[in-house]
C-alpha cells in the first residue's frame, strides 16, 4: 500500500434512539493508501456508508480517530469542516443529487463558487471537468434533460472540479442500468488510474467492486477481512 491518505484508528459510531443504542461501527482500524480505488462492501446496516460519511467529514465518530491527510476531521468545527470538505473531498451520491434548476455547467460550478477563482477560471475548470466525463456538449442541459448515466457523470464532474484528493462515492451505480453503471465505474477507474485520485466507493454490487483495486468487507459494524 502507498502512503496512507486515510488512517482510521479504533473508530466507533453509536446511534442512540431513546434508550436503545445501535453500534454502527465497532472499533474499526483501517488505512487507505493515496491513489487507491477501494470498494467498501457489506450488507445493509453493516456500517459501510457511515464509515464513508465519517471519512468524508459529513458525520462524526463517537470515539476513535479518522485522519485524512493528517487532519483529524472530527476535531474540526462545522465551519472549518465545510471548508475542508470543499477543498479535499468530492462526493458522488446514489441519487446524483444535482440541483434541478441549474444546468449541468452550473451544477459543476457550484463548489467553485466557494473558492477565490474568478468567472473565467471557473469556466475553464468546469469545461475541463465536463469534457473529462464526456459531457462537453451538454453544458446547458438541465438535469431533467439528461439520462441517469449522464446525470451521474455530471455529479462526478462536480466531485472532481475543485481537484480534491479524495473522491467518495456512495452506491454510485445503484440507480443506473448496467450499461450506464459500467460507464460510471470506468470513469471512476480512469480518475483513479490517470489522475491519481483516491476513490472510496460503497457498493453492494460485486461487479462494481471488481473495478476497485481493493475490497473491504464490513458486517455489523466490524471489519471482516481487513486488518492493519
Amino acid at each position: 500500500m502507498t502512503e496512507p491518505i486515510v488512517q482510521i484508528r479504533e473508530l466507533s459510531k453509536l446511534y442512540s434512539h431513546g434508550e436503545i443504542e445501535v453500534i454502527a461501527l465497532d472499533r474499526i482500524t483501517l488505512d487507505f493508501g493515496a491513489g487507491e480505488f477501494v470498494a467498501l462492501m457489506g450488507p445493509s446496516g453493516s456500517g459501510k456508508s457511515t464509515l464513508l460519511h465519517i471519512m468524508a467529514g459529513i458525520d462524526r465518530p463517537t470515539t476513535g480517530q479518522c485522519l485524512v491527510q493528517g487532519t483529524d476531521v472530527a476535531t474540526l468545527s462545522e465551519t472549518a469542516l465545510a471548508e475542508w470538505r470543499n477543498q479535499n473531498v468530492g462526493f458522488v451520491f446514489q441519487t446524483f443529487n444535482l440541483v434541478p434548476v441549474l444546468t449541468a455547467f452550473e451544477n459543476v460550478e457550484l463548489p467553485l463558487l466557494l473558492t477565490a477563482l474568478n468567472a473565467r477560471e471557473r469556466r475553464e475548470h468546469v469545461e475541463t471537468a465536463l469534457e473529462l466525463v464526456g459531457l462537453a456538449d451538454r453544458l446547458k442541459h438541465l438535469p431533467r434533460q439528461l439520462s441517469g448515466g449522464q446525470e451521474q457523470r455530471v455529479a462526478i464532474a462536480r466531485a472532481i472540479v475543485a481537484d480534491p484528493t479524495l473522491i467518495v462515492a456512495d452506491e454510485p451505480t445503484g440507480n443506473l442500468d448496467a450499461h450506464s453503471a459500467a460507464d460510471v465505474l470506468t470513469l471512476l477507474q480512469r480518475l483513479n488510474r490517470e489522475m491519481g485520485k483516491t476513490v472510496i466507493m460503497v457498493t453492494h454490487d460485486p461487479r462494481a467492486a471488481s473495478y476497485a483495486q481493493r475490497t473491504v468487507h464490513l458486517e455489523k459494524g466490524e471489519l471482516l477481512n481487513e486488518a492493519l
Partner: protein
Amino acid sequence: MTIPGFILRNALRNKRRLILTVLSVAISLFLLTILLTALKLMTEPPTTDQASLRIVTRHRVSLANVLPEKYQYRIERMPGVEHVSKFTWLGGIYIDEASSNFAQFACDADRIFRIFPEAVVDPRQEETFVKEKNSCVVGRKLLERFRWKLGDRITFQAGLWPCDVELVIRGVYHSEGLDETLVFFHHDYLDELLGRRGMVGTFWIKVANADVIPDLIARVDAAFHNTDAETKTETERAFQLGFISMMGNVKLFIGSICTVIVFTMLLVTASTMAMAIRERLREISVLKALGFTGMMIFTLILAESCGLALAGGVLGCFGAKILAETLDVYKLSRGFLPMFPVSAEILTVGMLVALGLGVGSSLVPAYTSIRTPVVTGLKELD
C-alpha cells in the same frame, strides 16, 4: 453563475408558488398602505404653513354650544390679532344625505380669505361674493364633483339649523393645502334666515406672528372666564384633532386591522418558506456536503425569503401609491376623501414590514435546515 444568481434560480423554481406568495404579500401590503394612509389622514389631517398662524375659539363645553357674536369685537382688539371671522358649521343636506359629505360654513365674507390665504380665489369673484349676501364661494373639487357653474343656485336643506339655505355660486377657490370641498357663505345671511342674530359656532383668528399664540390663547379664554359662555381657544391643529377624536378610537380600530394583516401575512409567508425549504432539505444537505457553511445556507434562505417579501412589498406599497395618484379618489369615495396622499414615510413603513416578513418567515426554517446534520438531510428524502 453567481451566488445572487443562484438565489434567484431557487426563488424562481416554483413559479406558481412564487406568484401566489408575492401576490399575497403584495395585496396585504397594498391594504396596509391604504389603511395607514387613511389612518394618517384621519389622525393627522393635512396642514399648511398658514395653519400655524390660526387659532380657533369655541364654547368651553362643546362644539354644539354657541358663543355670543359680541365676543368678536373684544377678540379683534387683542394684541397680535390680524383678523377674526365668525365660523359656523351649517351641516346642511344637499340633494340627499349621501351627497352631503362636505362642509358648509357661514363666515365673514370680507375676512375669510384673509384668514385662509392659501385658498386662492379670483379677486373679482371675491368682490362679488362680499357684496351679495346670498352668495357663496365653493371649492374647486366640489364644483367639479357636482358640475356646478358660477351663477348656479344651490339649496341646502335644514341640517343642524332649522332653515333651508339657498345660495348663488359666485366664486371658486383652489388650494394646494386646504380642503377643496368647502362652501363659504355669509354669516349675516344665516342669521337672517334663522331670524336671530348674535350666535356663532366658532371664531377663527389669524395672528401676525406664531410667537403670540400661547399668550393670545390664554388672553382670549381669560377674557370670557366666568361668563355664561366660557371659551376654549386652541391652535387649528389641536382643534382638528379634537374634532377627529369625536369619531372614537379610530386609531386603535385601524391599528388592530393592520396588526391582523401583518400577522396573517407572517403566517402565510412563513408557511410557504417552510414548505419550500422542507422540499429542498436534501439539496441543502448536498450544498453543505459541497462545502457551503451553515451561515452561507442561512444567508441564501434569508435572501430568497426577503427577496420574495420585498418584491411583494414593492408591488403592494408602490401599487397603492400609483393607484392613489392615478385614480380620482375624491370621486370614488363620493367626496369622503378629498385627497389621498401616500407619503414616503408610509412607503418606508410598508417596505420595512415587507423586510420584517421576509426575515421573520425564514428564521425558523433556515435555522432548522442548518441545524439538520448533512447525513440526516441526505437520508431523509433518499
